């Protein structure tokens, strides 16, 4: 894997995780009463904008590599998401979830290395 492809993979994952964290934060607030629409709309819009960045980076990667080769790099997502959800959304982590996500990442690493 060349450095530019690796950089693109990392950048796309960062966009994906940041965008999803913002979407989750926005959608969780729709469970409140009254719903803080302005805050929800702002976080939702920023999340969509960042996910759009991910979309175009991903499109660039797809043009250069086989889908089955680069798709596993999306698998960094669960581990990064676990970290992001714990740090920013204060979601509780469990031992089983950490083991499961470890397995997912290991499987993805194996797929990537093959």
């Amino acid at each position, binding site marked *: 894997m060349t450095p530019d492809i690796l950089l693109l993979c990392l950048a796309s994952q960062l966009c994906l995780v940041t965008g*999803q964290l913002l979407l989750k934060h926005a959608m969780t607030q729709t469970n409140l009463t009254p719903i803080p629409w302005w805050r929800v709309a702002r976080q939702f819009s920023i999340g969509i904008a960042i996910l759009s960045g991910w979309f*175009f980076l991903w499109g660039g990667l*797809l043009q250069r590599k086989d889908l089955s080769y680069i*798709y596993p790099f999306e698998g960094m997502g669960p581990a990064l998401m676990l970290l992001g959800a714990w740090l920013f959304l204060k979601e509780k982590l469990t031992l*089983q979830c950490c083991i499961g996500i470890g*397995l997912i990442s290991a499987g*993805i690493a194996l*797929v990537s290395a093959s």
Partner: protein
Amino acid sequence: MSTNCNNTDEGKTPPAASAGGRPRLHPYLQIIVAAFCVTAAELLFKRGAMATANDPAPLGIIGLSVLGSVWTWFGIVPYIASFIFWLNVLRRVPLHIAFSIMSITQVLVPLGVWWFGSEHISPCRWVGVLIVLAGIFVVARPAMKAEEQL
């Protein structure tokens, strides 16, 4: 760190019916439906990307030229469907659990490309796919079991 996965934001997932009594898909089922939509979208995007691989890229490394293929636009439709399901899931399921279960696409995409015969998948890659499946099972099972007990 607790020892089970039943840790939704509010302690439990809201019931699978709206205030008006209209039945809704179970959030975990919605994740699976969203995963199938993403798989369809990825396969279509790949087709669109291949169709435009030799087109001049307006912004260099950014893949804007993929929008020049009709397959990319077809791929956007299941992506939008997946996104709608996903937003509903985000209201009910913790992000790290939902996103981990969504990793089922790591299995569905290789299956898809293998099924349509466009790419070769090595045995080692298949083993990785099985490990990913095992990981998803470990993450999802306790959460779903807790849901059933509610």
